[in-house]
């Protein structure tokens, strides 16, 4: 049993002073490890450039950042001396960073690197020299000022957290957008040059060239035939199966469902070679039918699971009511269930369409004659052993991916839900 004695009872007046650390200092402590990491990335870039002066100054920069990091972790109440040290060393870091930028080629990435060395230093100087931090660091604060500090800490640290989030997300977005912007630039630039200033001269010659080329339209026709064929056949196979799995208990149901799961586990590679040989023997190479058959079966398990998930959400009472009203099982399916789950069927259709539209390996293997190329293989052939038509490729890529990307973004919620219903559960 617990005795009353063991309960804490000291006067808690100094709680605020004990717990108060300015949010600025906390945030800088979290920021500086990242600064050191980015210093390291910059150092790597300079090593790749082989620029020995910058390597030296960048190493210095990194050492200074590590020192700042260490000093920040030591900074505490009554450590006025460390506070002064941090500020002066950050001044040094700022100086180094500006000098390095001025001596470099001053392209975008240098600017970024300079921001990541100078801005944290400026932040250190600015926030550590704030009166409230100075007061805290010199150890002269009163309970009242600690309480005030605590109350502003909440909003300040929330604000810093948001800034952190935005900075991290912006970096990720830049990494995502870099190749996309570049390909737009290549599509709009004359010739097949891969480098140069972004959007220096804008021309639509590649778009008009690709749109007037016969092969692009042949590939598009093939892709459209294959994708639509896959969607129709895939749905025709998947809808009844999904419905049966969702609604009926029958002999062999568990085995059948397991076999659908099992297929999802098979890596495509194990069927590639025999698939090819079977298609070859049946004369289905270089035909649209071959690809349609292959695609609708590879997408089948996922479609069946997606649809089963959707059918499961249609209340069984509706069906029972229809049966009581005199419909037979087939009528229930066609007149009640199917119209109700039309949105779900549309999502599944979109899913199999996209899968067929984007598939590369089977199309490459099965349809080797240029007449039967689908868009993926056709586009890849623009960049191959016989040509480096980057401009045309870029224009064609934009034309091909734009509708797909828009569809994906618009229906992202449903596609992701459907995929997690089919994929992760399985």
């Amino acid at each position: 049993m617990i005795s009353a004695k063991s309960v804490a009872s000291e006067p808690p007046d100094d709680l605020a002073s004990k717990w108060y650390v300015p949010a600025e200092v906390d945030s800088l402590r979290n920021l500086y490890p990242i600064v050191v990491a980015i210093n390291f990335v910059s150092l790597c870039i300079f090593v790749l450039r082989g620029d020995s002066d910058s390597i030296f100054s960048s190493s210095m920069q990194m050492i200074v950042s590590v020192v700042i990091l260490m000093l920040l972790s030591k900074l505490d109440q009554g450590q006025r001396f460390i506070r002064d040290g941090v500020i002066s060393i950050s001044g040094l870091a700022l100086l180094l960073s500006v000098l390095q930028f001025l001596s470099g080629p001053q392209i975008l990435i240098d600017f970024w690197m300079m921001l990541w060395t100078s801005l944290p230093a400026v932040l250190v100087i600015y926030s550590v020299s704030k009166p409230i931090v100075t007061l805290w660091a010199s150890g002269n604060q009163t309970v009242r000022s600690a309480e005030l500090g605590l109350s502003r800490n909440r909003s300040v640290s929330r604000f810093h957290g948001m800034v952190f989030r935005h900075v991290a997300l912006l970096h990720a977005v830049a990494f995502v957008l870099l190749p996309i912007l570049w390909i737009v630039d290549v599509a709009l630039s004359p010739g097949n040059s891969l480098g140069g200033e972004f959007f220096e001269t804008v021309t639509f010659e590649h778009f008009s060239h690709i749109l007037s080329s016969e092969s692009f339209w042949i590939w598009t026709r093939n892709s459209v035939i294959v994708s639509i064929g896959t969607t129709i056949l895939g749905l025709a196979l998947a809808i009844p199966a999904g419905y049966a799995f969702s609604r009926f208990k029958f002999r062999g149901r568990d085995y059948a469902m397991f076999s659908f799961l099992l297929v999802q586990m098979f890596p495509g590679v194990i069927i590639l070679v025999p698939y090819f040989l079977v298609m070859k023997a049946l004369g289905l190479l270089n035909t649209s039918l071959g690809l349609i058959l292959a695609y609708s079966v590879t997408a089948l398990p996922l479609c069946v699971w997606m649809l089963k998930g959707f059918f499961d959400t249609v209340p069984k009472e509706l069906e029972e009511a229809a049966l009581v009203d005199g419909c037979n099982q087939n009528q229930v399916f066609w007149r009640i269930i199917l119209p109700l789950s039309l949105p779900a069927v549309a999502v599944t259709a979109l899913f199999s369409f996209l899968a067929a539209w984007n598939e590369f390996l089977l199309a490459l293997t099965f349809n080797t004659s240029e007449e039967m190329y689908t868009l993926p293989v056709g586009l890849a052939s623009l960049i191959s052993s016989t040509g480096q038509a980057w401009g045309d490729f870029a224009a064609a890529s934009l034309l091909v991916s734009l509708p797909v990307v828009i569809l994906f973004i618009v229906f992202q919620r449903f596609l992701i839900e459907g995929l997690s219903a089919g994929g992760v559960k399985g």
Partner: protein
Amino acid sequence: MVNVSFRKVKKQYENGFTAVNELNLEINEGEFLVLLGPSGCGKSTTLRMLAGLEDVTSGEISIGNAKVNDLPPGARGIGMVFQSYALYPHMSISDNLSFGLRMMKGEDRKSDDEISKLINETATMLGLSDELEKKPKQLSGGQRQRVALGRALIKRPRVLLMDEPLSNLDAELRQQMRIEIRRLHDELKMTTVYVTHDQIEAMTIADRIAVLNEGELQQHGPPMEVYKNPANSFIEGFLCAHLNEIVDTANSLFGGEEE
């Protein structure tokens, strides 16, 4: 043993809704105070402000003689029991109890031996000694409730906060736990703030009840006093009439047999 005080405490959300308005309330050392009111009356918000889980818009909350408005929850010396228990689902019961103690740093950190002694003491006190290696999922509702209570008590908090702790239990267990909680309080004598919407629970467990409605404190005092002298028509309807109705129902059910 500390007292708790609310002075002109106000909570207004960003959308303009005022959850608690100008609350003035003193809770004495070692007192068992129940915050009573219908759902949405601001009683849980009051408790969460005291715990530090919600910001205070204006006014002052103190524990002991220190203002705690902006102290992080962990610094306030409180223990809290949540309505949903909020146990750590992946940890064993003994880890659930000791997680806070093990994560402490600096001079407050207890040695491993002390911690395991505290675990055993707490488990014995709450009758959980045989369940220490189990996961929360393997326990019954009542046992989970005890674990939540144990987790709050093991730190020897200066103030114990309970947010509708019994509402997820069935009637019989609720009765039993109510008695147990009161017994623990009498033993440990820690200042306790207990939130409930159940009038009977409030009447039977409290030293003092404080009735809230629409963010305003209506009345506070020992249970029987509030019952006998309702300050306004709300109290009369919410507390007195409700209790009378229960008594009448009981009488009409059993009165005939006795005669």
